[in-house]
């Protein structure tokens, strides 16, 4: 066993010991009524505030109890335990489809495709609505990833219109586009996907997917030289979408192929407003010069290419600085944290996303699934670190307060104060008893009854106060010991988290630096192209001058 593992086991043993003392269950059970507990657990799971419900999970009752317990286990990283509970849920009468879907996802994550297919089939058999759609989509994706396009198509055909079917057809279209020389099969699949996406009730999700679909259809149409069709598709892409810059470039390309250079340059000019990180933007800069050249304005063409050259050079400097910052501060700080910008107002957030170079590079980087996992790892560890820091601060406060309180309890008996309060209580009860005989109205009687009950409760609490107070220092002492144990566990966990973060951060840094190097290479290629164009232009102008001279 390695040192790190030994440490992990030791701290988990300590925590298990702390939990076995019954501190958790007692607190949660008393606070939340049993009837509300499943709802409280559901809300906590949905909103990601797990701490208050960990103790609640064992006390849950009702049909959803086991399913919620499994979700708590999954959210707290106990996958194997969650799997066993989910299998139990599937064998029961409630939440069967949800359990099967979760099990299928776990099987996919473990790379066990036959188990994934089995659980997806179970989920589609017993589920309905969105759950069934997700299960059938999972089956179609598994078949597609195994190269069985026909089988994937059959699954998709059995789905209801909506988001999941649309995504399925979009992925199928991507496969067809890779395999076929003629894109007609891919275009048909994309058209079906568009029809399905329109039926999605979630308008934002539907709009985003439709933008992707129009862009892909436009691209395929440009590739087969069907420019009218391409412009029809591309004009439907929203101007505030992630797909906008590429759509604008392709739109300009389709227009220029039809000889409409002026309109093409308008599209490219709009694409130029976006950061060079987005696909199509560097081509749009080049296109501007080409447009002027073809329209018969060689001087303007030269200026445009020189401007493109300057933009690419500037971008190389930006990328160089980004790489330097990644090496200095780490990729997570340089690319993810700094891209957030704490000063951004929420109403500016959307427009900022598409116009800031660093955010644009972050979005491009995150297009790779491996990159998402690498960023998520560091983010998760930072989140754990933040949680532990908060807990450590809380425990510091509790320990100080309890130490102070123990000192006070030791110095104070409070018996004189208690005797005085007891006297006062008795006097008040006598006074009430004297008034009781004179009361005639029911309203007065009820008020008096209320006061009597409150006095009785106070007398009971005063009576048991001495006994409770004597036990108090014992309780606080136990709590103080427990808090100190937790404090030590916090420090150990903090050390482990920061150790794992170093490894996670190194993986992310390597990925980001490789990505930045690829982007720099892309800029070098773009520079080569503009320089080539400028050289052609000067050569042409020189030949023209010679020709004019000979005339």
């Amino acid at each position, binding site marked *: 066993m390695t040192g790190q593992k030994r440490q992990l086991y030791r*701290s988990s043993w300590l925590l298990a010991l702390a939990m076995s003392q019954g501190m958790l269950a007692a607190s949660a059970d008393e*606070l939340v009524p049993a009837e509300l507990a499943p709802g409280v657990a*559901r*809300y906590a799971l949905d909103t990601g505030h797990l701490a208050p419900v960990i103790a609640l999970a064992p006390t849950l009752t009702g049909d959803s109890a086991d399913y919620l317990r499994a979700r708590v286990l999954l959210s707290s990283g106990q996958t194997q335990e969650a799997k066993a509970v989910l299998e139990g849920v599937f064998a029961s009468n409630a939440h069967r489809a949800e359990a099967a879907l979760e099990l299928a996802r776990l099987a996919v994550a473990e790379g066990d495709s036959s188990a994934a297919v089995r659980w997806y089939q179970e989920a589609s058999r017993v589920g309905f609505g969105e759950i069934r759609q997700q299960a059938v989509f999972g089956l179609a994706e598994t078949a597609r990833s195994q190269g069985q396009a026909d089988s994937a198509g059959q699954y998709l055909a059995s789905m209801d219109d909506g988001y999941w079917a649309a995504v399925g057809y979009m992925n199928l279209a991507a496969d067809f586009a890779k395999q076929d020389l003629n894109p007609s099969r891919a275009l048909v699949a994309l058209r079906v996907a568009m029809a399905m996406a329109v039926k999605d009730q979630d308008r934002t999700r539907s709009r985003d997917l439709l933008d992707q679909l129009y862009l892909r259809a436009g691209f395929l149409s440009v590739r087969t030289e069907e420019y009218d069709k391409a412009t029809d598709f591309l004009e439907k892409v929203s101007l505030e979408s992630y797909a906008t810059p590429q759509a604008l470039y392709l739109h300009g390309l389709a227009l220029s192929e039809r000889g409409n250079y002026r309109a093409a340059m308008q599209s490219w000019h709009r694409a130029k407003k976006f950061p060079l990180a987005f696909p199509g933007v560097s081509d749009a800069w080049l296109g501007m010069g080409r447009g002027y050249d073809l329209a018969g304005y060689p001087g303007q063409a030269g200026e445009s290419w020189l401007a493109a050259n300057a933009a690419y050079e500037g971008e190389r400097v930006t990328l160089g600085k980004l790489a330097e910052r990644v090496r200095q501060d780490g990729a997570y700080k340089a690319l993810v944290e700094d891209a957030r910008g704490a000063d951004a107002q929420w109403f500016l957030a959307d427009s900022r996303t598409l116009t800031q170079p660093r955010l644009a590079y972050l979005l491009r980087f995150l297009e790779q699934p491996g990159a998402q996992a690498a960023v998520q790892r560091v983010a998760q560890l930072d989140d754990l670190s933040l*949680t532990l820091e908060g*807990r450590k601060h809380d425990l510091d406060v509790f320990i100080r307060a309890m130490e102070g309180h123990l000192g006070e309890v030791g110095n104070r008996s409070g018996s004189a104060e208690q005797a005085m309060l007891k006297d006062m209580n008795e006097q008040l009860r006598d006074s009430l008893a004297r008034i009781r005989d004179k009361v005639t109205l029911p309203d007065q009687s009820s008020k008096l009854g209320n006061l009597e009950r409150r006095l009785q409760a106070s007398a009971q609490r005063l009576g048991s106060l001495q006994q409770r107070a004597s036990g108090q220092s014992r309780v606080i002492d136990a709590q103080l010991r*427990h808090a100190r144990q937790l404090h030590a566990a916090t420090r150990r966990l903090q050390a482990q988290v920061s150790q794992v973060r170093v490894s996670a951060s190194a*993986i992310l840094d390597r990925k980001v630096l490789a990505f930045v190097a690829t982007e720099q290479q892309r800029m070098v290629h773009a520079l080569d192209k503009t320089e080539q164009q400028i050289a052609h232009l000067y050569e042409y102008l020189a030949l023209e001058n010679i020709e004019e001279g000979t005339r």
Partner: protein
Amino acid sequence: MKTLFGKQKSQYCRISPWNRGLWVSGILAALVTTSVAATSLDEQIERLTAEVTRHSASVHALEQQLLHPVNTRVAVFLTLQNRQALDLDSVELFLNDQPVASHLYSATERASLEQGGVQQLFIGNLADGSHQLKAVVNARSVNKRFVRRELEHRFEKRSGTLRLQMTLDARAPDYEPDVTFREWK
């Protein structure tokens, strides 16, 4: 893909096939090592997440015991009765005219409440006796109206934990927000 300016100039092969083989196997080995490292890292992160979650729960329980002694504890829970009628924007809570809790709802929180989630809106301490709870609800009703309502409830606090459930409702045709209170024994 068709580009504006034709194909890129073809590059000459600068690496001999033998060296290329070495490079390819080196890159593959590096990729496999990275992937194995990432998998073991994921396992470590999962284990740490489980431990930190349990640890946070222990601290939370200790906090509850220390800050909210059972005898004086008051907890207020929020639920939705008619799940489609109201889009909740915010809830403010006042105990004896003192603001004690306010919450602005995100889309996720709203969706969770609509699917039967119960929010633990407030936990605090109160002395025994008669008290007043005021809830200010800001919401959008299903008929696209913005509504703000102040609702009051008087209750008696006795020794032991008091659990109050606030249920928000709005009924057709006017979708006027209404809150019912229930005390759990």
